[in-house]
């Protein structure tokens, strides 16, 4: 696929070009949305809402400013965050103190995708959103709080919850494997 040609075709609303672009990036964007949502319907809703925005605004893409994949990746991720804002339940549990240093260790370090999805599937949905944005998407606590309209203390609480739940899973796995 010649990406530049395909993008030009999409700018002219050519359906074949749109399909080509969609299919080419589908595995990457499906993987991105799957980090946030367990439900297949939610994954596809976020992905297709995002692709709709990509097709709608593709004329605004400027190759001189950056890579097309990164531009569309950000667009899809924003669509996923918009869906998170629809799905999330707000319960005000907060950590008031600054515990940022406690979150510096990444529990997903050195795990493969299949394992990461499995671990994410063990987390409550709100904790999963926060955990994915922080550890897999590199958002800061402040950025997460702003993106999904959550207090910073609540974001910290979810990160703490994520780590303690995963720790229990890891320890259980170690016990089962006899390490």
């Amino acid at each position, binding site marked *: 696929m010649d990406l530049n040609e395909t993008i030009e075709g999409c700018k002219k609303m050519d359906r074949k070009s749109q399909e080509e672009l969609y299919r080419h990036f589908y595995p990457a964007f*499906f993987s991105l949305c799957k980090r946030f949502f367990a439900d*297949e319907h939610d994954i596809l809703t976020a992905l297709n809402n995002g692709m709709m925005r990509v097709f*709608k605004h593709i004329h605004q893409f400027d190759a001189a400013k950056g890579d097309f994949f990164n531009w569309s990746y950000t667009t899809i991720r924003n669509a996923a965050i918009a869906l998170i804002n629809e799905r999330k339940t707000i319960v005000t549990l907060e950590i008031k103190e600054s515990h940022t240093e406690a979150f510096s260790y990444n529990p997903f370090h050195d795990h493969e995708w299949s394992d990461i999805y499995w671990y994410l599937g063990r987390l409550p949905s709100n904790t999963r959103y926060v955990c994915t944005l922080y550890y897999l998407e590199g958002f800061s606590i402040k950025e997460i709080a702003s993106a999904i309209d959550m207090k910073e203390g609540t974001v910290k609480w979810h990160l703490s919850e994520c780590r303690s739940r995963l720790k229990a899973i890891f320890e259980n796995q170690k016990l089962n494997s006899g390490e």
Partner: protein
Amino acid sequence: MNEKNLHRYSSNPEDYPEPDIPADAAWSEMDQLLNMAPVGHAAVKSVASKSGSFVFRYGAKLLAAAGITGVATVLYFTNKPSHQKLQPAQAIVIQTADHTNKTMLADSTTIIIDQQSRLIIRGEQPQQTAVLENGAAYFQTNDQHSHLIVQSGSVEITTDSAQLFVTHNHADSVTSVFVQTGSATIITRGVTSTINAGGSFRIDASSRELKAAPPPNLNEMSFATQIFEFDGTPLHDVIPYLEKAYDIGITLKSDGMKNCRISAKFENMPLRQILDIMAFTIGFDYTLDDIKKVVVIDGTNTCP
């Protein structure tokens, strides 16, 4: 974090696991979305030239439906919540007072009518018309081949597989339409427009033109969706929304707590769970009588 291991910024399809949903199925859904909204998400597309044929096509059926109405049984439902499955060839007038009403049509379309509202359902399957004469109603059409027509003021709406919130104020003849999911086709003043998910519009009696409007507050639809969003909302304003959505009476015994503020979003949660969270946040005790459908809130906390 080993970013290389995660392939976070790779666009190469081979760097990712096989998606759980095959690309063909996903593209098929995307293709349909593009067909519905070729100019993009939540956009309005005016197709004035199509309106004549549309009105002609449905106008004849509406006249037929009106003929049926003349000999049909007319039922009144007042002041009682009800869940009913409609029989064909009936014109049903639903007029609510202090309770909401939930009606399901034969094609599994659900209509939830707010308090103090009046809605008439005419015609028979597959061509039924719901006329909202006053108040608010939430429509959930599940069948992709649903032919339900919603009329309100000078507006005529058709949908397939959508969630739609319509309000009509009889006094000033203002109609508002919010498409929460799916898409809807709206005809007003002979102009056909397509509104996609997230689109919100109002029509004044004077101009009779479709004008973009801010989406409604989630709480306005909570009687149907059981989704609430409170942002520093005083308890005495929170209570009526909960009463409507859960069809229950709530008594606040302590006046001192009526100004205690709630900031939370609740989505499809059982009432008891919501009360537990609020009780923990504000500091009150409550009793819930499921049989009498009464909640009594009491406490010593005082909010200025």
